[in-house]
């Protein structure tokens, strides 16, 4: 973001705080991750003003220092949504520091009854977003009952478009369930599970994500899978990749295993539905091959 746009963002924020009592002011919403922010925008329409904190696929979400403007946005927010499960621990800390009255919170992990230690990439599970969308609509209706009908209508549209993704997943599942695949990181794990794919080398993926070294036997197993083409597809995290993950990608390309690039955070200017669809299309093309 350039200095000028930042200045404008500040000015807008200051203005929105000053005018918070004004009747038709959009509700200030802060989303820790942009895919949740996008969903709030879709449900809220023109009645919400969403600020997403993690919005760039090039930054590593695990290493992130929140800035003052983030904390300030949280102080003014009426609704806050974040993943939880220690995926975004800075968010919990910032929220306890920046107290605000009447601020609603949606913690996606808690909403779905998950615990720290489970796979935190919940937005890759096709069952997650419909539940989250319903929760968003419920909170928005509670905070802003005047536009209740709009929120309900938007929610129906969002649920319909999410159902299309669900059908896509089902149709892929029918054709490809049981296919062996592998990945450099567990980002796509919940989606692979929903697709009925057999995910191999999970210990390697955990080690990469936890920033430890994969053990020698894990690396050997991974290489064997790629070289002997035991797996059809390698999912590769474009966003937070380390040297051993890059090596596996090269090896996959050399052995003729299809590489499907996925990203942890949604690319800017996209909607969640398009993002998922394009990744599923990419996967379908690789599996068809």
């Amino acid at each position, binding site marked *: 973001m350039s200095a000028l746009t930042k200045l404008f963002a500040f000015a807008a924020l200051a203005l929105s705080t000053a005018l918070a009592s004004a009747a038709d002011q959009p509700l200030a919403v802060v989303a820790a991750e942009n895919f949740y922010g996008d969903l709030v925008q879709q449900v809220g329409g023109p009645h919400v003003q969403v600020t997403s904190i993690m919005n760039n696929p090039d930054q590593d979400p695990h290493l992130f220092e929140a*800035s003052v403007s983030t904390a300030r946005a949280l102080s003014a927010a009426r609704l806050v949504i974040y993943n939880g499960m220690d995926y975004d621990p800075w968010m919990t800390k*910032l929220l306890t520091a920046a107290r605000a009255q009447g601020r609603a919170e949606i913690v996606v992990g808690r909403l779905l009854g998950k615990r720290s230690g489970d796979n935190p990439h919940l937005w890759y599970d096709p069952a997650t977003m419909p539940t989250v969308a319903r929760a968003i609509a419920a909170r928005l209706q509670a905070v802003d009952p005047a536009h209740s009908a709009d929120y309900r209508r938007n929610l129906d549209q969002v649920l319909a478009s999410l159902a299309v993704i669900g059908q896509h997943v089902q149709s892929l599942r029918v054709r490809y369930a049981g296919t062996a695949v592998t990945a450099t990181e567990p980002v796509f794990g919940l989606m692979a599970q929903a697709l009925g794919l057999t995910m191999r080398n999970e210990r390697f993926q955990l080690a990469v994500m936890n920033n430890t070294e994969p053990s020698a036997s894990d690396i050997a197993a991974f290489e064997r899978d790629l070289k002997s083409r035991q797996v059809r597809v390698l999912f590769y995290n474009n966003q937070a990749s380390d040297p051993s993950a890059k090596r596996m990608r090269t090896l996959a390309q050399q052995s003729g295993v299809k590489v499907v690039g996925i990203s942890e955070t949604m690319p800017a200017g996209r909607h969640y539905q398009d993002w998922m669809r394009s990744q599923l299309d990419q996967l379908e093309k690789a599996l068809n091959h």
Partner: protein
Amino acid sequence: MFEYDFMQHALIAGGIVALLAGVVGYFLVLRGQTFAGHALSHVGFAGATGAVLIGLSPMGGLIAVTLAGGMAMGYFGDRLQGSDIAIGSVLSLSLGVGMLFLHFYTSYATQATALLFGNVLGVGTDTLWWLGIMALVSLVVLACLARPLLFISLQPELAEAKGVSLRLVSMLFLAIVALATAASVQIVGVLLVFTLMVGPGATAQKLTVRLGPGILLAALIALAETWLGIALAYFTDWPTSFWITALSATAYMLASLQASRNT
């Protein structure tokens, strides 16, 4: 900027950490053991991952292992010469053990690693009380320990001849450093703690050779750098860590120039 809760908390928490780190850091710099400050802020990693592995609170593990690490550094490095080797050994061992724990830990280790990233903008009221108590305890113990500590730092042979145990005093001192780091790291972050332990103490020692004024000066410099850094971060929206490290380095360089001009 005072109208926001998080800014008030940042200034209070930053202030407490600055006073603590400034005073503790003065002795660290005097003893030439700043490496211990850096090392101890990373040693807790093994404690956090180990505690998660056996299902205990990662925070308890972090404090316990940092404390044990500090005492081990003091035990094996009781003489200043070569003490950085003892510190380095303990640091590398604990990082290695932390890796081993993560290897055995077969799920997502987000809660262990989350502990290592504090942020001065994310401090709640409960944490402030807790931080204040830890700081007070550390400073009181340090005050009791100050005389023998100075004695063994400046005249180790004489101190030993007089029957002062180098090993005991250096262990106790590094235990205090460990407590101070463990308390501060997850609240304000690794970089800030280390900066405040090294910069102000070194700057103060360039400006005065006298002990009492030196300690006071180190604490005041740390406080000024922290508050100014937080204020600058507020107005520029750049990271707080950057501003405080920049101020700390600038102060040290200016003090060095001043000192070399005077000689």
